């Protein structure tokens, strides 16, 4: 259970109104929400070292306070096979506005889910689960529950999705680990409850789930407007 956010996160986020991704991942990890193996690199040497530790292929994402929607500006390189590829990707990312460095992370696979939170005007903190990825706004297959979640809320969220069978197993597709997904959602719900005053919304999209694990691949935390 998260008692306190790692130091400095809110102060660093305040000027631009949202939490930079390395900090967002730190916050999630501290709360017990599983995230992709990753490292922040301020320079190419650091990035190469991180990628060697993590293992190729890797993903590299721009870290810039000016860029909230990274993929809209070409700020996400999703399939980097080797050090040469990483150097080339680095050169492209470094040209983006406000570039501070890049997040180097393992390349995950599995079923793409979206996990989110928002502070609802009428009901307070709300947790969302849905089928994620880029088509999330098209199918809109999502379900929400008020935080804090109990274990049975997670079970009912999964079974309320139209695509529930993608999670519970369908033909060739193996079921994702519901215990891991449940643990991740419960930890996330506790985090959201603890920081509800500070935030407006959180998108964890995608969260990759397999029969073995669930891990957050991308995190965006938008702060509540200053009072």
């Amino acid at each position: 259970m998260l008692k306190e956010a790692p130091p400095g996160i809110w102060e660093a986020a305040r000027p631009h109104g949202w939490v930079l991704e390395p900090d967002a991942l730190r916050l999630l990890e501290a709360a017990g929400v599983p995230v992709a193996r990753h490292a922040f690199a301020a320079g190419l040497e650091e990035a190469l070292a991180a990628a060697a530790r993590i293992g190729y292929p890797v993903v590299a994402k721009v870290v810039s306070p000016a860029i909230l929607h990274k993929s809209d500006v070409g700020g996400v390189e999703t399939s980097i096979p080797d050090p040469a590829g990483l150097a080339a990707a680095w050169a492209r990312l470094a040209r983006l506005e406000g570039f501070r460095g890049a997040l180097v992370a393992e390349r995950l696979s599995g079923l793409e889910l979206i996990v989110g939170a928002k502070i609802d005007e009428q009901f307070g903190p709300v947790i969302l689960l849905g089928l994620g990825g880029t088509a999330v706004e098209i199918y809109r297959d999502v379900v929400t529950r008020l935080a804090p979640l109990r274990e049975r809320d997670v079970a009912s969220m999964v079974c309320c999705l139209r695509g529930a069978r993608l999670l519970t197993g369908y033909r060739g597709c193996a079921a994702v680990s519901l215990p891991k997904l449940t643990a991740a959602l419960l930890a996330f719900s506790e985090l959201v409850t603890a920081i509800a005053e500070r935030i407006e919304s959180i998108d964890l999209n995608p969260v990759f789930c397999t029969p073995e694990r669930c891990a957050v691949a991308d995190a965006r935390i938008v702060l509540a407007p200053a009072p």
Partner: protein
Amino acid sequence: MEPFDFRPLVKPRRIAVAGVSLTNDRHPANVIYNKIRLRYPVPVHAVNPRGGRFLRDPLYASIAEIPETPDLVVIAVRAEAVAAVLAQCIERGVGAAVIVSGGFAESGRPDLQERIAAMAREAHFPFIGPNCLGVYAPGRFDTFFLPGERLVRPDPGGVGFVSQSGGVLVDQMVKFSAQGLGLSLAVSIGNKAVVREIDLLRHFAADPATRVIAFYVEGFGRNEGRAFLEAAQAAGKPVVVLKAGKTDAGRRAVGSHTASLAGDYRVFSDALAQFGIVEAHDEFELTCFCESLSHYPRAIEGRVGVVTVSGGHGALATDILSGLGLEVPALSAALQAEIREGLSANVRPIAALGNPVDLTGSSTDEDFLAAVAALGASPEVDCILLLLLPYSPGISADLGARLSEVHRRSGKPLVAYVPHVEKYRILIEGFELNDVPVAPSVDGAAFMVEAMRRCRPC
């Protein structure tokens, strides 16, 4: 905050109406005063600062002048004059008020509304409104400024209904009445400046006459929704909510998938399910759900045994039930044999018993009793849906009353469809007066079953 004492509001022993006009017969205050004076068993007094006589009754110049303190004052004066009357009520020790007058927050004068709300909160004085129709208490009184002859007036019964819209309330009274569904109390809460949904929810939860609590809600205030859900879950009786405003403006869609996907209505609807509150999607569902849950206030899983005289109706009902996600399970060979054993000699060879149980047009009362008794005693289904088309000559007018005894023996919910036309009235009442709900259509009957399934946390 200590809960309001609503006794003066719901069972007033004396009422005053402020704003009665000497010149305008159609003034809301006059309509309200006249209907209470002429048609309800509660003393009522007219108030107008000019004093004198109204018709042949005294017209009091202020609340203070009324010889005995009223429990309830209906305030129907101009918005600017409401605060003064409210002050008189509080000063006099009146128990509650209904402020019918408009001209507050809904028309750009939140200041006027905040002023009267602050006065009431300070004195812990409950008032309904402003900008509302107020209270309909069947057989006791009502504060609607609509002439009695223009209203459809449900009988006393088990539904407590709270509506943010007066128009929806009046129209819903028509629908409840057509369904033979009675009200314990109906309240149009208008701008809900002081008394809000949650206050009345708590009142209805404690009121022994109320078996189902129903709401028409447009929206809650900031963070008010969660407290409402928790109170509804703690009410210990079914709560049904019809929410209007399902389309989101999508105003916060920029910047966050979650904010765009989890719109106001999505969150509202999912939260109701999470807390075991039954959401009705329209007025027809609201009526069906209230009818069903006022008879059967407990949840079922939704394994339905369908009994019919017509194969077509059985198929239609099965389609509707399946579409709602309810199950119409195939009955075991043993149960089918047991049912067949009880059927009359000419029906036995032609009836189809797989579920739907089609007793055919040759069936008689005894065949229905046998089939329903067997289903009632079997764990294979947890609810029975009867499609009763009284054209068949073997069906008597007594069947409703006789079948309801089967339900009372087994405790298993029984819902019937009988066409709602006057000539079948005696059959319908045979069910309804014996605690079995009757729907006016096949889909209505399916909704009555669905209500029981939704009545538990998801």
